[in-house]
């Protein structure tokens, strides 16, 4: 196995990075947080560049690159929810400029007593971008329903991250047509969402490390940059190693989605768990190494810290996903485990 980005993928990353440095600079992110600037023009720019059409599972690695860079730039648009929560559950429903998200839990569906429609009932809590989506994909035991946002009652939560949109999405006996229901691969969709969130967190953690490195190289105490002290260096290295580990597992999950590899589900759990572990290390050490300056509202460090930490709190934390990894490796039939796959599949031996 060759686990490196090819030339096209490297070019994509550079292109995304260049665009974001112009279109989504720290000043814009700050103005969204402080002045309520509407990120809709930025969203239209993304759509114009074709980024909102990266929805084929075969493009999962490319989507991952985009999401990592957006996480690094603390993107204020609903792209993550649209491409990784909504699109895998409702392929082809939204236009390139429309937004969507998913209600994974909390809503049940019943057949209409008379007629061929369905009744949706219940509340999905903490739905990413639930307050600004054009569409909802609602996961129920009876299948996935794709419904326009106007059918739901939405309440945005006031959360610690000023850039994060999270809402409770309620359906009070809402009638929807039979055509809005589809049988889609929800397990795959969940893995895409986990992997997308993991890469977003990795990007945010990279941003924290970059800002921290800049800070400790320039901040002087006792007449020298504090980055020359071993206690500081070694913390920074632990951040770097945690990021490298999380990035590797997240891109492997993306690759397993793109290649329809049987290890996909375990890989996605590993990706989300590692991103959470990385966040713990990076949040604490980054915040700590910034000293009092990291404690202020004016410092942009807060946006990246919060993007990573909110990611850890969504879709299950590291402990939840480690439990899933353990269950997959210890309780499932041997053929689905990583070790067994490696020994039966010589060509994939490097993984």
């Amino acid at each position, binding site marked *: *196995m*060759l*686990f*490196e*980005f*090819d030339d096209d*993928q490297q070019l994509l990353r550079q292109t995304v990075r260049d665009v974001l440095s112009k279109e989504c600079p720290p000043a814009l992110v700050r103005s969204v947080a402080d002045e309520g600037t509407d990120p809709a023009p930025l969203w239209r720019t993304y759509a114009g560049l074709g980024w909102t059409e990266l929805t084929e599972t075969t493009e999962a*690695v490319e989507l991952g690159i985009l999401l990592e860079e957006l996480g690094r730039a603390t993107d204020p648009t609903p792209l993550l929810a649209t491409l990784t929560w909504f699109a895998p559950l409702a392929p082809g429903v939204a236009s390139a400029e429309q937004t969507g998200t998913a209600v994974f839990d909390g809503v049940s569906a019943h057949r209409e007593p008379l007629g061929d429609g369905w009744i949706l009932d219940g509340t999905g809590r903490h739905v990413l971008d639930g307050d600004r989506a054009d569409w909802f994909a609602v996961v129920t035991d009876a299948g996935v329903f794709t419904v326009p946002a106007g059918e739901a009652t939405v309440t945005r939560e006031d959360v610690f991250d000023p850039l994060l949109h999270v809402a409770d999405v309620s359906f009070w006996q809402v009638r929807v047509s039979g055509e809005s229901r589809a049988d889609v691969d929800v397990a795959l969709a969940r893995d895409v969402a986990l992997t997308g969130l993991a890469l977003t967190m990795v990007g945010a953690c990279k941003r924290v490390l970059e800002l921290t*490195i800049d800070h*400790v*190289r320039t901040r002087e105490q006792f007449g*020298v*940059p504090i*980055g*020359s*002290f*071993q206690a*500081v*260096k*070694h913390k*920074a*290295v*632990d951040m*770097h*190693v945690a990021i*490298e*580990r999380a990035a*590797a*597992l997240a*891109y*492997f999950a993306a*690759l397993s989605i793109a*290649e329809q*590899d049987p290890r996909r589900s375990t*890989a996605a759990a*590993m990706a989300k*768990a*590692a991103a959470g572990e990385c966040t713990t290390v990076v949040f604490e050490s980054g915040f700590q190494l910034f000293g009092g300056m990291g404690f202020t509202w004016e410092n942009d460090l807060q946006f990246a810290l919060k993007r990573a930490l909110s990611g850890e709190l969504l879709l299950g934390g590291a*402990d939840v996903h*480690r*439990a899933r*990894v*353990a269950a997959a*490796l*210890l309780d499932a039939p041997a053929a689905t485990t*990583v*070790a067994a796959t*490696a*020994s039966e599949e*010589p*060509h*994939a*031996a*490097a*993984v």
Partner: protein
Amino acid sequence: MRLRFDDDVEAFRAEFVSFLDANLPTVEEAAERPTSTAQMPEWTRRWQRLLFDNGWLLPGNPPEYGGRDATLLQQFVHLEELGRRRIYHSFNPQGLGIIAASLLTFGTDEQKKRWAVPILRAEITAALGMSEPGAGSDLAGLRTRAVLDGDHFVVNGQKIWTSGAHDADIILTFVRTDPDAPKHKGISVLVIPTDTAGITRRPFGSIVGRDDLDFNEVFFDDVRVPAANLIGELNKGWHVANGSLGHERTMLWLSFAERLDEMVEDFRPATALDRDRYATLAMDAQALRLLGSAALSRAARGEEDVASISVLKLFGSEAVRTAARHALLAQGADGLPRHGVTRPFEHMNLDWFFASWFERYARSFSGTIAGGTSEIQRTIIAERVLGLPRG
């Protein structure tokens, strides 16, 4: 990104696999077990010679040195197959991996013929004389002196750790030949046969047991070494040291990945906490292989990549140590007995690897201490990767 190697690499693997299937020593043949890293029972020598003669010992070498001019990726799948089948590459690992490699890089043709080929063909074994009581992480601070006297060097001083020295035929010895030069510029390298007068080798026990004799103190007392045994140029020994430690570093992570795979097989969690730790182990094992594969890709393109090698060493060695600790702790009081068997006997592998959980935990520290401690690695990464200022 892709999940598979190219066909030519897989064809190479298949050829090696069929060689192993046809020629691997049987369990009965391998009954006599090595007692140190330079003590090779006759069957291990025969096996290494067979690998050498067929170009499978170090496939990247030319045929006269036990290889077949293989590419880096071919060399990788060769090591991967050895690891997967739990075949220890050489029972004189430093001889093969560091000393013979240094001689092939820095030695004259005569020196290659005299020492490198016999080491590779397991006719002699070798130990590495680098560390001293006062020169560990600060290797360049070594003080063992060598003074030229006619056509001989006269060597005085002491080495320590020198694994397997009491069983080795030669010691590749780093000595100070110019005490007035800056410390990196006064070092030279000598091949010293261990039967030379004035050498005392004193093996000492490890934390595993007083009878676990691999470490040595080696004392040099007016030892006369022919000037022809100088490897590389006089006072250019630091160059050789860097080259020596650089050999195979690109794939050093693979041995940590193998230890992690063994832990994944052997650690059977009972409690919820053990299961949580097991998941961490499985993730570490997967992540190390992925990061190693990325580094391999860069190396295959010829990129110099010292920094990521440090990341892999740090991450891999600490992951193994963490996993071994968790596996031991999961045993509770059942982890107390000194002797124990924690995985099935593998006749081509070192016995260390299926010893008691305590021994596996203790030996995991060789990964985080030897070859540059974790603390040294962190400082290297901070300065070379993250660009932090030197302290």
